[in-house]
């Protein structure tokens, strides 16, 4: 089965081989040390390979072995709680095998092949199964049930299926055609896992963060981009999303980032607690870490490894959120490999297929009816790090053309201590419309209007601020001054959120609605009061206004809002009577 060829040429991570008849994207073992590589081009007799490890000392004439398999990951119980490099080698295992530095020529399988799992079948002899069907379950971690799937490309009639304790290599049953069933299967990372059909993104991913859920919602199965300027609190935001969003599985890809920062993530994530279950957050997390000095080809592969794992859990019927930090580094890896291949460069040296690759990647997000008949989703949140903060560069531009949500993290807001530092003027979400129905059914029919009123108010504030910059706020007419004050309330009482406050850290969707409605209702009353003669200074000084500020820290907001609004009515009545 294995075909042996030989190396013709070596130039950095790009190796050319002769006499192997490999297919595109097959994994090959290069040289005497068997370095892992992947076929990325075929030119006549020559096969071009990108190698995931350092090629120093490798000579022409050394063997190249075609494994006949494309770059694949092992999918099965034991993925959760893992920390992988870009090609699914567990970093703790690598540390054990070769010490603190990453040496080459070491292989390590993605799953623990010795661990025993308790398997409970859900099918029986004689059942006719299609690919992707659930054949049984394994309790993978404290609160995640791992559904063992028939590989999507396998189908048949169950001939034998056993309950019991197995490793991922053990045969747990057979199909009538003799196909062995195991707890794990392989899947090529560059191939999207099939689904029955994709569904419209009509359910919001509830994050409990008011700026997201309230103004710029992301749908389950949607795509979002965040630029990550330094000091804008990106890490805290990512952790909030991992902790609170109603995705069951979290996949985090650290792609080409700093080693020390990655070390921080690897240290902190295992200590985070899942606020919903009280168990460690790692029990539903997979981390992938490929720092900037680890081989560039593995960095290129890391996002595919990550999204394949995400798709696998989607296929079990879970909602998965995937964070890729950062896609700019991934694009740079593509650029580097492309330039080694001496391809004609496109914009800024990036390959001409940059846009296509980005689009393909984001296209793997989505909510879908899975092959086993459930519904699952993969939501992709990609960080971009534009050089010099310049959004016009190709990676940011091509990303923005694809994603539907843009959360503009803004270092200036962070400096003013406005957290989460998402700029409400430059962010956007295109899911508003598709999600409306869900809001109408689950929150309130008023929600859509509230949201657009809020956006209008903030927009109006920005316009007025321009004028204030020139002439000072005293020069504005009373009604405009009041608009500024109400907008400030929206910003400070609603948009700002304290990640470290027990209650404020997570704000249920229904509370968001009630809070926003209360603030805007208060605003309407204030406008009426102003019209009937009250002064802006008096209105701003009302006690009910201060009370509104504290609502976000209250657990039982219904009672509090009730008191606040009663107080507001009294106060406004008094204001108008005074005249």
């Amino acid at each position: 089965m294995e075909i042996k060829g030989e190396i013709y040429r070596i130039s950095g991570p790009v190796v050319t081989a002769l006499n192997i008849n490999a297919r595109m994207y097959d994994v090959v073992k290069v040289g005497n040390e068997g370095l892992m590589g992947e076929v990325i081009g075929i030119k006549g007799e020559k096969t071009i390979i990108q190698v995931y490890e350092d090629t120093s000392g490798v000579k022409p004439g050394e063997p190249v072995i075609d494994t006949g398999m494309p770059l694949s990951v092992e999918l099965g119980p034991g993925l959760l709680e893992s920390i992988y490099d870009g090609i699914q080698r567990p970093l703790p295992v690598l540390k054990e095998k070769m010490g603190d530095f990453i040496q080459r020529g070491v292989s390590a399988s993605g799953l623990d092949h010795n661990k025993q799992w308790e398997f409970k079948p859900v099918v029986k002899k004689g059942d006719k199964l299609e690919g992707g069907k659930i054949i049984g379950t394994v309790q993978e971690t404290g609160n995640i049930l791992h559904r063992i799937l028939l590989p999507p490309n396998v189908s048949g009639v169950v001939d034998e299926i056993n309950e019991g304790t197995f490793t991922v290599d053990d045969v747990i049953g057979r199909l009538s055609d003799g196909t062995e069933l195991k707890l794990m299967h392989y899947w090529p990372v560059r191939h999207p896992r099939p689904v029955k059909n994709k569904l419209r993104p009509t359910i919001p991913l509830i994050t409990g963060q008011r700026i997201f859920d309230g103004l710029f919602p992301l749908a389950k199965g949607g795509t979002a981009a965040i630029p990550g300027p330094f000091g804008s609190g990106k890490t805290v935001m990512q952790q909030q999303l991992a902790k609170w969003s109603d995705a069951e599985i979290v996949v985090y890809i650290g792609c080409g980032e700093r080693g020390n920062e990655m070390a921080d993530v690897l240290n902190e994530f295992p200590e985070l607690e899942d606020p919903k279950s009280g168990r460690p957050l790692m029990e539903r997390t997979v981390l992938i870490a490929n720092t900037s000095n680890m081989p560039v080809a593995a960095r290129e592969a890391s996002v595919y490894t990550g999204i394949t794992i995400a798709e696998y859990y989607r296929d079990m019927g879970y909602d998965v959120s995937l964070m890729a930090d950062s896609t700019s580094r991934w694009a740079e890896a593509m650029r580097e490999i492309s330039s080694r291949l001496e391809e004609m460069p496109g914009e800024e040296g990036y390959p001409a297929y940059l846009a296509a690759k980005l689009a393909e990647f984001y296209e793997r997000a989505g909510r879908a009816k899975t092959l086993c008949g459930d519904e699952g989703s993969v939501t992709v949140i990609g960080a971009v790090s534009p050089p010099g903060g310049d959004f016009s560069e190709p990676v940011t531009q091509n990303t923005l053309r694809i994603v539907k949500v843009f959360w503009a993290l803004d270092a200036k807001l962070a400096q003013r201590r406005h957290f989460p530092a998402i700029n409400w003027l430059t962010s956007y979400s295109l899911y508003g419309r598709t999600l409306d129905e869900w809001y109408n059914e689950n929150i309130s029919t008023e929600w859509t209007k509230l949201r657009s009123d809020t956006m209008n108010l903030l927009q109006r504030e920005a316009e007025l601020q321009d004028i204030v910059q020139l002439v000072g706020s005293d020069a504005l007419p009373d009604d405009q001054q009041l608009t500024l004050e109400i907008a400030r309330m929206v910003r400070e009482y609603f948009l700002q959120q304290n990640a470290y406050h027990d209650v404020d850290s997570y704000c249920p969707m229904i509370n968001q609605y009630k809070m926003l409605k209360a603030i805007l209702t208060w605003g309407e009353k204030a406008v009426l009061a102003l019209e009937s003669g009250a002064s802006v200074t008096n209105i701003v000084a009302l006690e009910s206004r201060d009370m509104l500020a504290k609502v976000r820290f209250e657990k039982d907001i219904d009672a509090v809002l009730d008191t606040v609004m009663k107080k507001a009515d009294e106060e406004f009545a008094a204001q108008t009577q005074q005249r």
Partner: protein
Amino acid sequence: MAKEYKTIGEIAGPLIFVEKTEPVGYNELVNITLADGSVKRGQVLDTSKDIVVVQVFEGTGGLNKDSGVRFTGETIKLPVSSELLGRILSGSGEPLDGGPRIVPEDRWEITGAAINPYSRKPPEEFIQTGISTIDGMNTLVRGQKLPIFSGSGLPHNEIALQIARQAKVLGAEEEFAVVFAAMGITSEEAQHFMYDFERTGALERAVVFTNLADDPAVERLITPRLALTAAEYLAYECEMHVLVILTDMTNYCEALRQMGAAREEVPGRRGYPGYMYTDLASLYERAGVIKGRKGSVTQFSILSMPGDDITHPIPDLSGYITEGQIVISRELHMKGIYPPINVLPSLSRLMNSGIGSKRTREDHKAVSDQLYAGYAEGLDLRGLVAIVGKEALSERDRKFLEFADLFEDRFVRQGMEEDRDIETTLDLGWELLATLSEAQLTRIDNKYIEKYHPAHRNKSKASTE
């Protein structure tokens, strides 16, 4: 003895193309013998069955088609030994100080392997440099990589030297070493460094690699790798805390571009090769602390921004890899302030993990934030004053304006030999903040104001007396 080839087909810039060889390993070290018997060294850049491309470190001057080429069969290694300390070596690792050859305890590959992120320990130990603007507002921690973004004609070398002289970890008497790698600096600058190292006795605990401006550019590509290999040896084998100073990274990148052009590669931004990010990462990322090991590698690299342009690819890509930057300001330098560090664009990303009650002092972050905010406001006002004049300012604004001046004059400015400990720096910060009204100190918790504000301190002193 390896076979000698006399089959050079082409010589282009620093590259030679050798034909009809036996299989040659990628990145292998090459010796080239000239007609006069002298030997140059090179490295394999590209190898195939038909042609091998070698980059020659000492330049291709004097080479011809008859020069003999020997492939050594191994990649470039640095003979490492604890005896490296106190030595001055060339940019390719040969002794320059007239001393004996290094007797190696081991030979390490200079490319270095990536630290497994799982093995890394997040850096958190405060390094006191004795410079207020760094310690107080852009704190350096062990295992960090922090570049100095400078420009031509600015005193970055003095600052680097001062840091090398003064850097220490509080309360710890641990072995400390400095590895200094000069890339493409002038011999005058090099002598200045040497003189200072010898004058202060720092040379005893330093290893110096010098590649001068007239040394071959291609040698610059290995100089930092030699230095970092030496640093890793001292850190992880000899358990020392090593501070690596790399100067000037801009020269390194120029050499990288030069090599890229010689190899006729497709250029990226401004002609620099597309792999510059990864190449720089392979240097910068060699800083760090490893769980369960005693030593550490901390990096201070100096890079001069062409045209003071911080968006130039070199500072830009560096900034994406390093954990912050110290920015030198021409304006402050012109005002005669040393060290002319502009704190506003400067940043240490690891600062927060290195400061606070157990590491420096509990009020550190608050003082730093407040100084930052106050200075930023003062500078804004300075811009305004240029338009409307001082008279138009309110009393409050005038205070901030004065604060900015005081800040530059007292906090930023310090002597080249002045080693301020962190207490002094923070107290100085308080002294300056005391010129503002207490109500303006919005970034500082009241409990710190009561404890550290000079007005309160004097009060509590008075009451105890």
